[in-house]
């Protein structure tokens, strides 16, 4: 029983990380229908930015974290401005190929600068954060993830629900011609969604780095794992991305715990194939409002 509970807790923690990683991906898809293949690299860049600022530049952790978020927000803007904007109006497939190109470019740059080794963050989280119920343990890094992640989710929820810019972003995702006719600055909306996506990616990259160690290959492969998560949840659903992440996280840990650790990495993709066969629009995809 303790083993089961521990797996459950681990699964939910891991799943929550996947959810956060998938959020930025969904945001870009929702506003501009672009599948961002460079998402894993955005995660990796965030983690390395934090590594440089906290360990090499020796800044206080909180400052390094804030600077990383600001830096990746800016990076998102820059990617949109210099790479994607010239392609507005071109076929979607070209834009998607472009993100694939960006992903290899970033990966190459990271490997060039940092090499393929695993880098470690110093232990900076207070031990007191860890939770313990009987034999079940939740390490401090996961507790921190939950706290930071939930704060971000609440901030984003408010941003999209109540702020004008958030409402403009949703209007573009909903009906782009109508948004254009009302003068919504569509380019600014795209830029914002890339910036926010990069910011969330950096955040989850940092946490994943703490958990698994910072390695270019490891982190950028998370970009691929985002696909089962979002396809399970429905590509255009934020809530679905969160649920999808939790489900994949649980599946992975339970497969690892009860079946075989070598199956662990494959199971999300088996699920991906099965889901696509049964429900091509995902389990929680947007319910289309049809007018009869």
């Amino acid at each position, binding site marked *: 029983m303790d083993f089961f509970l521990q797996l459950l807790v681990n699964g939910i923690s891991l799943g929550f990380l996947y959810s956060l990683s998938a959020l930025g991906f969904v945001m870009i898809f929702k506003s501009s229908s672009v599948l961002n293949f460079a998402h894993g690299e955005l995660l990796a860049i965030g983690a390395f930015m934090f590594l440089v600022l906290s360990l090499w530049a020796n800044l206080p952790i909180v400052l390094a974290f804030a600077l990383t978020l600001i830096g990746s927000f800016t990076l998102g803007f820059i990617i949109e401005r210099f790479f994607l904007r010239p392609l507005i109006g071109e076929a979607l497939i070209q834009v998607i190929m472009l993100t694939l190109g960006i992903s290899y470019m970033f990966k190459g740059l990271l490997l060039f600068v940092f090499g393929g080794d695993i880098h470690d963050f110093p232990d900076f989280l207070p031990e007191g954060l860890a939770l313990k119920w009987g034999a079940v343990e939740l390490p401090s890094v996961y507790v921190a993830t939950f706290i930071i992640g939930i704060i971000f989710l609440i901030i984003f929820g408010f941003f999209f629900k109540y702020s004008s810019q958030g409402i403009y972003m949703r209007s573009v995702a909903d009906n782009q011609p109508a948004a254009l006719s009302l*003068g919504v600055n569509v380019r600014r909306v795209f830029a914002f969604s890339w910036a926010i996506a990069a910011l969330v990616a950096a955040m989850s990259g940092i946490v994943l780095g703490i958990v698994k160690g910072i390695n270019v290959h490891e982190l950028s492969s998370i970009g691929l794992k985002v696909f089962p998560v979002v396809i399970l949840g429905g590509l255009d659903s934020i809530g679905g991305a969160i649920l999808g992440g939790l489900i994949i996280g649980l599946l992975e840990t339970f497969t690892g715990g009860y079946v075989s650790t070598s199956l662990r990495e494959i199971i999300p993709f088996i699920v991906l194939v099965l889901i696509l066969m049964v429900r091509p629009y995902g389990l929680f995809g947007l319910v289309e409002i049809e007018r009869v």
Partner: protein
Amino acid sequence: MGNNIRLLINNISVVYSDVIQVLKGVSLTIKKGQVVSLLGSNGAGKTTTLKAISGLLKPENGKVTEGSIEYDGEQVQNSSPEQITRKGIIQVLEGRQEFKYLTVEENLRVGTATRWGKSFQKDLELVYSYFPALLARKKSLAGYCSGGELQMLVIGRALMAHPRLLLLDEPSLGLAPLLVKEIFRIIRRINQEQGTTLMVVEQNANMALQIAHHGYVMENGKIVMESNAEDLRENPDVKEFYLGTAASGALKSYKEVKAYKRRKRWL
């Protein structure tokens, strides 16, 4: 001439995808504070004319290749929709184009996009005073509203942008006759109370000519007739082809072959 003219379209041609010519030399004038109706059958180029004004041709790969569009004395042809909406020209698209997954009030708030960050509470109250039906539904998703409510919603949404020239594309489309009357009454009130200049594209020529000061008739990408609204209502050709009654006032008969010849003269 000069400062009482809001919009002056001078002999424009519009081409889609560099090959398909839709407008062939359209000219029209809209005076400040007027309601101008643009009538015509399907495919005459009415919507294209509106999109040429509002800049929405661009996303559809269309372009004004000749002529000029002057708004308050400034040339605006081929500007982007963002620039044009910020000058005060707002188009209400055909077929209601609401934001399905936004609530009614959020839909209205998108109308403030041209003046991001300014307060909008007064404007919401104004829209709700014109369309009380929207107030009752402000928290429900637009996707679940009725056709009449949606038409009110998209006109209200455009009002939120403080338009100086409001372009309405087929506001009567698919609505019950009573609702059409109601909508047109509100359009007239907006024109009179807010002083908004309006251009209304319609198939329902009867309604459109009742609220308009001036009317234009389009066929095949050209303006074939223009006059003040009363004269158009009395014109025998317009009566027959657009108001659905023959010159005598009786319902039009299918057998009147002569109509074909008269119609042809316009093309």
